[in-house]
């Protein structure tokens, strides 16, 4: 009996090894060949950056990340794009819609399974540094130098922030990356109740607004069950490791060079105390921690006055409601930090067969306004209509896209923002505004710096769990005693090892600044 068992197990193992061997090798070979894409790899016949029109056109796939859209017109957009791309770079385009919730699995399993992937979206749901350490995306420097001049040119102001350990892995869609804290609100309601909303509002101003709203039975805002560091919308700041500052942060990033545990600062305590007042006074919904309805939905229904958000010149466009007019105010000073650049990047998948063609398309997106607009907005007349009396303003009203039934981009930013059309209520002054806003921004001392926490995965898991456990209640103002709760949070973070992570982060940051 034992013998049989041993024999069978041996057989199984042997078979498992052979059966798995090729599939494992299959997907590992092409990428490892590509991982240092030298000139030789890209376009054998053509020379430096020259496009070879003699070969059969290669089909470049590009991810198109959305929410619930039907994406009915994708084929038509592809057709319109192909007319241009065939002529200019001898390739066709395959737009691949992906639900945002599926994006991480789609990309990582796609690379693992050796499926066709060319241009992928990085930074949107998984941090670029993580994708780099998982070797999901290729370094692009050689390709960029050879055939990505336009992409480099458009993103030159933020070029250093596109780099990780000195190598470029993605081209940002946010080349105007300055962001400040902001507050989106229901403008119709503000006018009706006489609430003064203005740039540079303070926590006290918002408290006053909350008092007025309370009389009318509307909540000021809700923070949901969020474990992000919401303090950001009031004061900006640099946060390492995502929106909750798992690897520490800097309160005044324009001047600071010391990374601290942001939860262990007086500013944070004061902020949490203010939010607790909001909650105690009934400005926040009592059930915000457990709401199954999203904040966006509450806002849309007029149940909430507004919500904290990141302020950019075109942020408002994504908060439009059919029920009322929306407005936005700027709260903190604009800041240029790495995370805003890496939020949305076009990258090339590790298993891409023709990185050269993928780069050609990326470059074309950044150099050809027509291509960028097609990818971003679809076809004029079908998916959107120009607004009369303006140069570049468009609207979805009166098109199938009013209900998002056409080709509708939710989470993507393609190309040079100055090439793209803009959606009403933005006006033609947008192009000047966005440049002015960018120029008014202060640069974080950590601009261009990314901390790779791969060696600290145990600590960061524990930190992340601590934040998910303790931060939502503080964020919602639902604690008995703010000081005690913050003390507990800080103690738990210490136990989880945040000091080690911050020390390593600081050491790497110092090395970065020394360069």
């Amino acid at each position, binding site marked *: 009996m034992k013998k049989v068992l041993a024999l069978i197990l041996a057989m199984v193992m042997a078979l498992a090894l052979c059966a*798995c061997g090729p599939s494992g090798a299959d997907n590992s070979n092409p990428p490892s060949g590509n991982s240092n894409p030298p000139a030789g790899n890209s376009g054998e016949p053509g020379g430096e950056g020259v496009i070879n029109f003699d070969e059969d056109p290669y089909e470049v796939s590009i991810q198109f990340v959305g929410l619930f859209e039907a994406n009915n017109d994708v084929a038509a957009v592809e057709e319109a794009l192909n007319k241009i791309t065939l002529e200019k770079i001898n390739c066709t385009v395959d737009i691949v819609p992906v639900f945002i919730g599926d994006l991480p699995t789609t990309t990582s399993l796609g690379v693992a399974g050796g499926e066709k992937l060319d241009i992928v979206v990085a930074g949107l749901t998984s941090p670029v540094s993580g994708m780099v350490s998982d070797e999901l995306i290729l370094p692009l420097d050689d390709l960029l130098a050879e055939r990505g001049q336009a992409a480099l040119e458009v993103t030159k102001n933020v070029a250093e922030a596109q780099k990780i350990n000195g190598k470029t892995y993605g081209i940002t869609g946010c080349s105007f990356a300055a962001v400040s804290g902001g507050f989106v609100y229901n403008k119709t309601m503000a006018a009706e109740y006489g609430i003064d909303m203005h740039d540079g509002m303070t926590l006290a101003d918002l408290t006053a607004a909350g008092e007025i709203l309370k009389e009318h039975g509307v909540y000021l805002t809700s923070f949901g069950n969020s474990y992000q560091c919401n303090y950001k919308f009031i004061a900006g700041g640099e946060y390492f490791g995502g929106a909750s500052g798992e690897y520490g942060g800097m309160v005044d990033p324009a001047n600071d060079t010391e990374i601290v545990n942001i939860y262990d600062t007086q500013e944070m305590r004061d902020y949490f105390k203010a939010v607790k007042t909001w909650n105690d006074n009934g400005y926040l919904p009592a*059930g915000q921690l*457990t709401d199954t309805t999203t904040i966006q939905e509450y806002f849309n229904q007029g149940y909430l006055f507004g919500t904290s958000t990141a302020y950019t010149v075109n942020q408002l466009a994504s908060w439009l409601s059919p029920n009322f007019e929306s407005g936005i105010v700027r709260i903190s000073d604009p800041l240029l930090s790495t995370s805003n650049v890496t939020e949305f990047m076009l990258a090339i998948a590790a298993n891409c067969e023709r990185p050269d063609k993928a780069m050609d398309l990326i470059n074309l997106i950044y150099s050809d306004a027509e291509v960028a607009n097609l990818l971003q907005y679809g076809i004029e007349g079908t998916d959107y209509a120009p607004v009369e009396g303006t140069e570049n303003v468009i609207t979805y009203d009166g098109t199938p896209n009013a209900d998002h039934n056409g080709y509708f981009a939710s989470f993507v930013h393609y190309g040079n923002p100055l090439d793209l059309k803009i959606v009403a209520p933005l006006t033609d002054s947008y192009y000047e505004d966005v440049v002015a806003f960018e120029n008014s921004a202060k640069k974080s001392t950590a601009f261009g710096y990314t901390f790779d926490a791969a060696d600290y995965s*145990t600590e960061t*898991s*524990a930190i992340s769990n601590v934040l998910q456990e303790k931060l939502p209640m503080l964020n919602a103002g639902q604690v008995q005693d703010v000081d005690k709760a913050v003390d507990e949070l800080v103690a738990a973070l210490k136990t989880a090892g945040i000091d080690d992570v911050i020390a390593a982060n600081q050491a790497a940051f110092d090395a970065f600044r020394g360069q």
Partner: protein
Amino acid sequence: MTIKTKPQAAGQTSVKRGPLKTFLHWLPFYLMGLPGLIYLFINNYIPLAGLQIAFKNFSYSKGMWKSPWNNFKNFEFLFKSKDAFIMIRNTILYNVCWIILGMVLGVAAAILINEVIGKVKKKFYMTVILLPYLMSAVIIAYLVFAYLSPTSGLFTNMLKNLMGKAPDFYQETVWWPFILTFVNQWKGIGFGMILYLSSILGIDPSLYEAATLDGATRWQQHRKITIPLLKPTLIMLFILNLGQIFRSDFGLFYQVPMSQGALFPVTQTIDTYVYRALLKTNDVGMSSAASFIQSIVGFIFIVTANKIVSKVDKSSALF
């Protein structure tokens, strides 16, 4: 070809006539099992090669074979972090409690529904009681919330009306061992009932008839006939469940408590911890390590339990 090999084969069989004949005798059985065995081989055995990811610093483009080893780094979280004790304790305690409770309630429900007279009634009960089993964790979470929500829950409002105040269920840990146990049993009892009922239906009715003639009460019949005859099934399910002792129903522990931080001390299990860690890091190595440990612990439990059972009653052993 056949002619050439025949003498050889004949020569062999003349010596080992027994085995070949035995093999031919059993061949139809093997053939019947073959499709299933092949499927299990493909679906379950081949991917086992992936267990090595637990010991590697996985790179998607290098694949599992070429990724570098990183010793036991992926397992660190289970030993180094202070949450480890809480999540392991929760996982095991809930499992032990639910395995036993699930058996007791399932068998009781199966015996009772078998006592119901009337086909239509039986059908109705069975359909209705199975309903919760069909609902996804997300929907169950909505329903639990509808009853327990601090602001608009049906149950909280009822308590407020009756007693003037109601606890804030989603912020107080004391309730959740009971809520989770209730939801788990509520969801599983229909399944358990049908499972045990199908075994009860397989019991030879003449046994009951004979017992009735001997004057045994119904209660005695169940004690002396039903339960003993269910024993093999119960033992088998018990052993199989032990194999899952380090795993947990992710939806139940993540969705139903609405991922409330305040409830982590009683709702965090190994699976939810890993999931929460992955939200940030997307670390395949860590989830593989967790799954590896879960399998090993389950394996040890099953083999031990099976050994004990086979010492006591050989025919009840699983393998």
